[in-house]
Structure formats: C-alpha cells, structure tokens
C-alpha cells in the first residue's frame, strides 16, 4: 500500500534552518507521526512547507499525487495545517466555521460549551483559541472524500493537563483508516501516547527515534 504522504528532500526555499538535503520521510494512512526538536530548529516551517504555505525545494506527494499538480487551495483542504498561533478574521467564533458542520459533540469533546460559537474572538483565552482553531481544522468539510493529512503544530501547548487529555482523545477519534496526523510536540510522553513513530531534529536533519519515554 503506497504511503498517504511522502516527502523527498523537502526544505523551505528562503532561509531554511534544515540541512541542505531537506526532509525525506513517509506517513502511512491511519498513523500518527510526532516531530520533536529544540525551538527554532525548523519544525513549524517544515509543516508550513508541506501545507504549501511557503515556497520550497524538494517534492511532496499525497496519495501518489505530486503537490504541484494539485491546485493549492485543494491541496490545503487535503493537507490541513493548524498553526501553533491561531489566526482569526471575524469577531464571532461561529463565523470561522462552515455553517453546515455540526459541532456540539466536538465542542463537548474538548470541554467547550455549544454557546462557544457565539463567543467574541478578542475575549477568548489562549487555551480556548487553541481548541477552537484545532476544531476548525479537524471539522473542515472534505469535498472529495480523499485521504487527508492533519499537520498540527503543538496542538496542546496552551492547554492544562485535563484539556490536553481531552484533545488527545479527540485526535484518536479523528484517525480514520484514510487519514494521518503529523504533529509537533515538545513532550515525549505525549508523543508516546499518540504517535506510532517519532522523528527528531538533529543538527537540521530528521532522524527516527524510539517512542519509549
């Protein structure tokens, strides 16, 4: 079975912190891969280049289709990136979600009430922002039913331990046989709880590491 996501020598084109050889690895459907490394080593920029938010060298395939052969907006609906610092373009939380999506259960799963859709964005705490931004990415409607990869940049960094466990439980339910998760974390315990594989940055190179804490 071919990998859902495949990278070959992928690196940001502008001021890349990665080793010139770039990042090369595969992510299979139904799996979670954790990425770890010190701050500033290029983890977030790697996810951004996979999502095609930055110009890059190298190649990425999704389900055997090369990135440049797919229109960028469609690519990003299949390779969904959720940044560590979320962005909001309207005052009301609900205006950032597709009207057709039913969110009550998902909101409950991350410890937020249904009224959260009516909340004002400027009054959200950092934890609320993070959970809502994650839900926004996870509930993005799929138009073609193709396999999807979620690129999550420290999805629980602003959360307390209880909320972290809730989000982790939600992430496990997201993993259908046709989806995969590639996530950045600073916690080896979290990687051990969620991931099937661990990749660590070492002097600008990504190397596989054992998951055991």
């Amino acid at each position, binding site marked *: 079975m071919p990998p859902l996501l495949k990278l070959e020598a992928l690196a940001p084109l502008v001021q890349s912190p990665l080793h010139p050889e770039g990042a090369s690895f595969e992510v299979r459907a139904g799996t979670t891969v954790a990425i770890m490394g010190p701050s500033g080593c290029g983890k977030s920029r790697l996810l951004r280049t996979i999502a095609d938010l930055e110009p890059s060298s190298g190649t990425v395939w999704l389900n055997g289709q090369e990135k440049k052969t797919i229109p960028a907006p469609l690519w990003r609906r299949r390779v*969904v*990136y959720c940044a560590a610092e979320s*962005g*909001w373009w309207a005052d009301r939380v609900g205006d950032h979600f597709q009207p057709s999506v039913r969110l009550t259960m998902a909101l409950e799963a991350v410890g937020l009430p249904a009224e959260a859709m009516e909340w004002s964005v400027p009054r959200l705490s950092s934890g609320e922002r993070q959970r809502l931004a994650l839900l926004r*990415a996870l509930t993005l409607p799929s138009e073609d039913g193709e396999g999807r990869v979620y690129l999550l940049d420290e999805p629980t960094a602003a959360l307390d331990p209880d909320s972290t466990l809730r989000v982790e439980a939600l992430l496990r339910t997201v993993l259908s046989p046709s989806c995969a998760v590639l996530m950045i974390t600073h916690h080896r315990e979290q990687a051990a709880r969620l991931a099937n594989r661990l990749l660590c940055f070492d002097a600008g190179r990504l190397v596989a590491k054992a998951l055991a804490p």
Partner: protein
Amino acid sequence: MINTSTYIALRDLDLFIASGLVILNAILSLLLGLGVARQMLIAAVRMVVQLAVMALVLVALFRHATPALTALTCLVMLVFAGYEISNRQARPLAGWWTWGLSTGAVFLSGTAVSLLALTTQIHAEPWWDPRYALPLLGMIVGNTMNGISQSLNALTSQAYGDRLAIEARLALGGTRWQALQPAIRAAARAGLMGIINSMASSGLVFIPGMMAGQLLTGVPPMDAARYQILIMFLIAGGTGLGTVIAIILGALRLTDDRHRLRLERLQVRTKL
C-alpha cells in the same frame, strides 16, 4: 469667460504676509515640542519653489505648445507621482515594485480619464492644448496619487498585521482573494474615502479649491460650479480606477500563484 475687471493680481508682499502663518505654525511647533517645524518649513519652501518653477515651465509650454512637449510634461508628472507614492509607504514592496506598480496605476487611470475629459467634455482646440491638458491631468493625478498611496499603505500594513488570519484562511483552503478580502476592503476604503468625503461635503462645508480659484478670478459662480462638478467626477473616476488597479496588482505581488502570502516581498521602512 474670465471677467478680468474683477481679477486681482497678487503682489510679492501679499505672499510674504501669508507665509507668516506658516512661520507662526513652525514657532508653535518649536514651543510645544511637536517636532514638525522643520518638515513644515521645508515643505513650504518646496511648495514655493516647485510652483514658481512650474509657472515658468507653463509659460514656456503655453508659448511653444506642441503635442510632444505636452506629452513629455505629462510623463514627468506621472513618474513623480509614482515616486511620491513609493515614498509614502510604511512597508513598500521591495525593489522597484511599489514605484512601478503605482506609476502604472496612475498612468493608466490618469491618462484614460484625462483623455476622456479632453476629447469629449472640455472640447479644447486642439484637444491636447497644454493650457487645459496639464491642469486637468495635474488635478486628476494629484488626487489619484493620494488614493493609491493610502490604499497601498492600508493593503500592505493590514496584510502584515493580519498575517495570522490571512494564513489561517489559506491553510483552510481559501484562495488568496478570500484570504486578503478584509485587507482589500480596508485598502479600497482608505483610497476612496478622501474623494467620497470631498464630494459629500463640497458646497456644504467648503468651496473646493478649483471653484474657489475660479471665483477669485471672476468666473460666474454657475460656470465655476459646473467646472467643479466635472472635475469631481473625473477625480472620482481616476481615483477609483487607479486605486482598484493598484490594489489588484499589490495583492498579486503580496501573494503568488500557489496562493501563499509572501510578506518577505515587503521591506520595512522606519521613517516616512
């Protein structure tokens, strides 16, 4: 037709007395520590020199009017308009982009609207007569320049300030036009608000500059009003067209064909 019997020529002494107001402003700025005295005096001196030189150039142009000389003067005005727009940007596009883009937008909108007015409304003989073509282009380009300058400034500043929101929309599969929509709307508002306010308050709050000038030189009020209305429409058309062109080109340069936000194409300028 100008009623020369009511035309009052100004003497140098009149201008000198009026300049006392600018000097008074500069002194107030120094006393209150506002830090604008130097700029105000430099701007005032520049204005006097520029207008005096322009008057001399116009005298020569009116005497030896040719289409080539008129076109060359228009070109110089348009190039300087582009230069002025680039100079007023807090975060201009790097390289020659802001200058090229704004000169192109001013050129397209200014010449299109001026040509339309000269050939279909002013009916000057010949249509390129510098006595009509240059003041008309000057008024249209001056206002279009302000509109483009403010709209580009709003576009780049908002794109920079709202980069997280713009990238969030792009990351969720939005196109560059969807992601930049708030910045584009803010830019259009900034660029067009001047002429909208100007049209809305003309004749109610103030007498517009051109009409005031014509009244001072003895033109009948109804004729002066007609000219002013025409000019306002032309300025609105030129500013709208120029602003839209500049915003579209600016948004294209701020992004790329893979719908990515390319803020590294902006340069940061600390002083305006």
